[in-house]
């Protein structure tokens, strides 16, 4: 049995006021490309247009089910999909990229995903994150790479009270411990 990075934290995370839960083993592919035609072709293959605006993500569904495409840089994106789809997605994206300059790399093992939900999500994250998380500054669809309690994370704002964190597997337990501590004052 493969054990996910936060398997040992499942119960403790679920008991937090932010209802944290891990979404382990998601398929993740780092895409580097700057050719607009190639980016459009890759979006068409996934059924999700690639984000054109910095610090946002797009979501949709197509041949590979629900897919999110995250803006990581002006020519860099992260494609996130359900587990065990990395090989077919990689092949499809490579085909769509064609001869344009770029790369598609399977980075699924790099990060695990933590979903946070509840009215205190933005308050808890503000304890360790300098990015303005007020709904007016970070509406749903925001995707920022930043430091959360000195840990590099990708932070997706998926709704008014829901945030998804992508964190490197090796420091996921540290982040879980920090989250538990930051949540103390919101316990009822």
């Amino acid at each position, binding site marked *: 049995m493969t054990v996910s990075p936060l398997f040992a934290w499942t119960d403790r995370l679920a008991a937090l006021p932010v209802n944290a839960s891990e979404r382990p083993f998601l398929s993740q592919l780092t895409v580097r490309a700057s050719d607009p035609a190639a980016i459009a072709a890759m979006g068409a293959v996934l059924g999700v247009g690639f984000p054109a605006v*910095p*610090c946002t993500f797009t979501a949709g569904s197509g041949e590979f089910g629900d897919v999110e495409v995250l803006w990581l*840089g*002006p020519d860099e994106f992260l494609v996130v999909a359900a587990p065990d789809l990395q090989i077919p997605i990689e092949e499809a994206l490579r085909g769509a990229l064609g001869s344009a300059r770029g790369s598609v790399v399977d980075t699924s093992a790099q990060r695990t995903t933590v979903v946070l939900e509840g009215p205190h999500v933005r308050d808890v994250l503000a304890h360790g994150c300098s990015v303005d998380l007020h709904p007016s500054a970070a509406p749903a669809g925001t995707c*920022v*790479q*930043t*430091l959360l309690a*000195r840990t*590099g994370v990708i932070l997706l704002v998926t709704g008014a009270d829901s945030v998804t964190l992508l964190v490197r597997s090796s420091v996921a337990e540290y982040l879980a411990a920090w989250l538990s501590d930051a949540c103390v004052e919101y316990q009822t």
Partner: protein
Amino acid sequence: MQLIPCPWCGPREEAEFHYGGQAHVAYPEDPSALSDEEWAQYVFFRENPSGPFAERWSHSAGCRRWFNAVRDTRTHDLIAVYRAGEPMPEVIS
């Protein structure tokens, strides 16, 4: 903590950035033709002005792009930021 405006991501805290020294130091056209003194000048010698200074910064914890910034070395004010490859904006000191 000081906020540094990344040209891609907007204002972020200083801890997300790495400093890259003076900007616009051109690589020599023909390095092998340089004397030791000229090579040392290129490798080691940098401006140290009191006032506006064009520097390279990397948003290492964010989008990981290099960009340039004009910083006033007396006040730490970032007068301008601009993407790599763009010309240095006119700065009034």
